[in-house]
């Protein structure tokens, strides 16, 4: 019996190749999209799940409250976590990680290691990060000890034995011994480093005294509890803990620190404080929904085409019933057919995924999977899903078909599938609702991206060649001379040095500024250290007061410029009022000498916060050369030469300010690209279904078309006749999809402090796109049959 079912199923698929092809193509494309999204989502959900003690690990984070604002930081100061271990028996162990970027060398092999961190030895016992060589208890215990990942060990030592060898930190000055080699950090870690240096190197040798600095926030701290259930109780004790250790100092500064414990497993996706790598729960939700939608669209095609063809199958049903089949057997047969079709699609989907995976890794910006066949269980699940789709999509047509009364069918008085028409229309509408909503979403994402890229940032980012010298003292000690040499490079116009470039993070400086009431108000300011030329070269406008000037010797130590945001935060009505007011910040006191117009020193996702500029060469890390834009390569080459003469130890690292700024939108860019691709898929699958339905309905109306042509109808008239019905459906879908898309994208845009308004044209355009594609799809058949010779179609009757 089963064999007979499959036999006839195969023959049916083959006889109706076009329909089968449309069905299988749609389903397999839908399934592979789903599989890819499934891999992506499960990769995102797998972050930090590999730690054996993960349930008991918590990140210690700090909220810093001043009278004006609250900063929710993801870090803890150096002494906090050791003190917690000492004070609380619940805490079994702590790990601190202090990220840094150092020049590391072994003879001529030199790398600027951006992914370097100082860390406690306990890292190897708290986290599941195994050492391949070395003693986990001692590898990072003493100062000047280094642990390399396998990849970086190969980078420095090739096949030679690294343990016991010496590497030099910060160029050639600080020797350190390699005491261990660890496995590379897994891809799904929210922090990943290439080189670990013992924490004591940082706290005792490079920054002696740091062990007592409770107010310095740069790195991360994790605690391992004996029992995860202790966390709430421990949290409750933390305010008293802070009070005991630094209550007095904080009171003086009008600040409060509130510590919190974040479960390790929540950091990557759920922490609002961010992490070296963090994911987005909304994006995961969006993509999961898209996966479900795409699968839905593909299943709808299946249902539609199957019921549309029911008239053709009716005769078979009638005969089978006459010779003895009962309804159950027929239902089984039709379900079997749809399951078979889904299995074929499934096999194709797995193949398609294997092909697309590298591309998808690239698109999503990470290696979500090394190969589709690593995921036997995932494939198993998808197979189950495929069978479920087969059953789900097959059940309706199966019930309809098996319900035919044999006499009606065999007598020919059977009217072809009129019953299903409303349902089919409804399903087509829902397909296009999804497609149009996705198209609208794509348009909104891209408009927002374009807006962010083209928005006037309040500073000039063009033709700014930025060279990162990573705070090397050779430069800042002689930077005037170096600047001179830079400005004399071909096509170089001017040069300026600074601690940061707009677009990158700045240290947040705890400051006290005189507010409109004359009170010194504690304020968190983002701080740029710059030289005298920065304001001019970056085209930042002064709205009150004056820029820094060498004419005023006190400018180099006792003056700051603030932005307009700081002016309003402090309660002033106009920028003029703040000129001459007092400030106290990070060891400096003096007056505010000028106000700069607000400019975007962060991506447009973030609102502009209060910030200030000061002069301080010691902080410099970057030089920016403004170039004319003529023969850029020559300028870069000359700068490189100059670099190698001045700093032979350091690799020449440069970029352009505008490119770097646009990188702030990389994740939005990726999101947009993924969105675009899935929207294309959705509309593609929807149109496949439409193509099938259109060809079917055209087929059914062949006779009508023939008669109309004989009576003198034009080709255009017939195309119109055949397309009208379908376009009406797209139009209805448009009316439903637009408000849905509006609501969804309105929510998405909330993440951006500066965002576009969703103009009507975005919706209109999405509707137009869908309409045109649908029209094209439908008229393909309509035109063909309109052009056909009418005598032919009439003869087939």
């Amino acid at each position, binding site marked *: *019996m089963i064999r*007979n079912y499959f*036999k*006839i199923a195969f*023959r*049916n698929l083959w*006889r109706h190749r076009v329909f089968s092809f449309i069905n299988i193509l749609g389903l397999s494309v839908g399934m592979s999209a789903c599989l890819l999204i499934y891999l992506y989502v499960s990769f995102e959900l797998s972050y930090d799940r590999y730690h054996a003690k993960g349930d008991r690990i918590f990140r210690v984070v700090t909220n810093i409250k001043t009278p004006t604002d609250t900063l929710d930081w993801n870090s803890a100061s150096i002494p906090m976590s050791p003190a917690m271990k000492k004070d609380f028996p619940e805490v079994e162990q702590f790990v601190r990680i202090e990220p840094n970027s150092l020049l590391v060398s072994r003879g001529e092999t030199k790398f600027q290691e951006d992914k370097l961190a100082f860390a406690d030895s306990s890292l190897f016992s708290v986290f599941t990060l195994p050492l391949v060589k070395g003693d986990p208890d001692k590898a990072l215990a003493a100062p000047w000890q280094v642990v390399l990942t396998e990849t970086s060990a190969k980078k420095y030592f090739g096949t030679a034995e690294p343990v016991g060898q010496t590497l030099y930190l910060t160029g050639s000055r600080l020797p350190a011994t390699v005491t261990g080699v660890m496995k590379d950090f897994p891809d799904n870690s929210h922090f990943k480093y290439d080189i670990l240096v013992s924490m004591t190197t940082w706290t005792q040798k490079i920054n002696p005294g740091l062990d007592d600095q409770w107010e310095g926030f740069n790195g991360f701290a994790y605690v391992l509890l004996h029992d995860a259930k202790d966390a709430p109780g421990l949290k409750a004790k933390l305010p008293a803990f802070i009070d005991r250790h630094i209550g007095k100092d904080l009171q003086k500064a009008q600040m409060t620190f509130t510590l919190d414990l974040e479960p390790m497993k929540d950091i990557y996706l759920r922490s609002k404080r961010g992490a070296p790598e963090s994911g987005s729960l909304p994006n995961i939700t969006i993509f999961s929904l898209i996966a479900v939608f795409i699968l839905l669209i593909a299943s709808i095609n299946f249902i539609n085409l199957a019921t549309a063809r029911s008239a053709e199958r009716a*005769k*078979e049903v*009638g*005969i*089978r*019933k*006459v*010779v*003895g*089949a*009962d*309804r159950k*057997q027929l239902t089984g047969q039709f379900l079997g057919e749809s399951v078979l079709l889904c299995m074929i699609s499934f096999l194709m989907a797995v193949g398609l995924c294997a092909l697309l995976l590298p591309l998808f890794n690239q698109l999503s910006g990470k290696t979500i999977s090394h190969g589709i066949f690593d995921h036997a269980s995932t494939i198993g699940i998808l197979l189950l899903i495929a069978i479920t789709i087969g059953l789900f999509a097959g059940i309706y047509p199966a019930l309809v078909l098996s319900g035919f*009364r*044999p*006499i009606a069918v*065999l*007598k020919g008085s059977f009217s072809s599938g009129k019953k299903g028409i409303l349902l089919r229309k409804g399903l087509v509408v829902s397909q296009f609702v999804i497609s149009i909503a996705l198209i609208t979403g794509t348009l909104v994402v891209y408009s927002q991206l374009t807006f962010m890229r083209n928005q006037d940032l309040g500073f000039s980012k063009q033709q700014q060649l930025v060279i990162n010298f990573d705070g090397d003292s050779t430069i800042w000690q002689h930077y005037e001379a170096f600047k001179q040499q830079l400005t004399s490079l071909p096509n170089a116009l001017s040069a300026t040095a600074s601690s940061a470039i707009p677009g990158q993070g700045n240290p947040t400086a705890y400051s006290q500024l005189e507010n409109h009431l004359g009170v010194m108000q504690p304020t968190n300011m983002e701080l740029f250290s710059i030289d005298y030329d920065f304001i001019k070269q970056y085209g930042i406008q002064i709205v009150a007061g004056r820029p820094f000037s060498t004419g005023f010797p006190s400018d180099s130590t006792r003056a700051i410029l603030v932005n307009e945001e700081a002016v309003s935060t402090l309660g002033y009505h106009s920028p003029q009022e703040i000129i001459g007011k007092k400030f106290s910040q990070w060891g400096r006191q003096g007056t505010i000498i000028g106000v700069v117009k607000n400019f975007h020193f962060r991506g447009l996702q973030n609102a502009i916060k209060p910030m200030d500029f000061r002069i301080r060469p010691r902080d410099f890390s970057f030089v920016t050369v403004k170039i004319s834009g003529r023969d850029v390569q020559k300028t870069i080459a000359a700068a490189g030469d100059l670099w190698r003469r001045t700093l032979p130890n350091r690799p020449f690292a440069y970029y352009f300010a505008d490119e770097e700024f646009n990188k702030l939108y990389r994740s939005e860019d990726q999101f947009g690209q993924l969105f675009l691709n899935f929207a294309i898929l959705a509309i593609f699958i929807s149109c496949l279904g439409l193509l099938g339905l259109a060809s079917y309905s055209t087929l059914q109306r062949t006779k009508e078309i023939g008669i109309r042509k004989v009576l003198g109808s034009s080709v255009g008239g017939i195309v119109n006749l055949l397309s009208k019905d379908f376009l009406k459906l797209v139009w209805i879908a448009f009316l439903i999809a637009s408000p849905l898309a509006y609501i969804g994208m309105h929510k998405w845009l909330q993440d951006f402090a500066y965002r576009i308004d969703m103009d009507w044209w975005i919706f209109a355009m999405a509707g137009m796109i869908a309409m045109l594609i649908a029209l094209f799809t439908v008229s393909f058949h309509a035109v063909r049959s309109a052009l056909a010779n009418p005598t032919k179609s009439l003869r087939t009757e």
Partner: protein
Amino acid sequence: MIKISDLQKVYRTEEVETIALNKLTFDVKEGEFVAVMGPSGCGKSTLLNILGLLDDPDGGSFLFNGTEVAHFNERKRADLRKRNIGFVFQSFNLIDELTVFENVELPLIYLGVKGPERKQRVETVLDKMQIMHRRNHYPQQLSGGQQQRVAVARAVVNNPKLILADEPTGNLDSSNGNEVMQLLTDLNEQGTTIIMVTHSEHDSRYSHRIIRMLDGQTVTENILV
């Protein structure tokens, strides 16, 4: 074997009500060969469908082998049908996707006959109908006469007690038609009861008895010897 009395069938559409069978009464004994004749639209096919348990009457009684079946539900009817009744239609009604062999095999599959026995029984009947050499062909590859022979083979493969034939020669030329009539006669001689609807006086002569119908009622019954 069959005893119907006051059988009624009414078709209601939105506009009209058609009385297809109007208090029809007759019976058919086991082993008879009965021809039903009458003008188009008089209710012959309707009658055959009810006799074949494909359709249910609106009134009256239908005794099949002494059992009242007029109010059987679909499952019971299907069960009775597949064990006792074979059909032959004017338009053959073969499944285009299946070969000759598979078409004939179908009733046995639904009866739950095991593979080897099925094969043997199908081959026997194909042999008898002289289309064994076409066993792997598809219906479209056969002539009308051959297709109807396949249909007859399919109707008899499960050894039904009753064969219902609705204008079995209607789509055939006379020589093919005669062949099919010969097959039916042979079957009847082997004991199968046959009820056949036909327009052809020629074909009706193969039967023992002719029931003439008009507007859903029997008008005469001629007994042929």
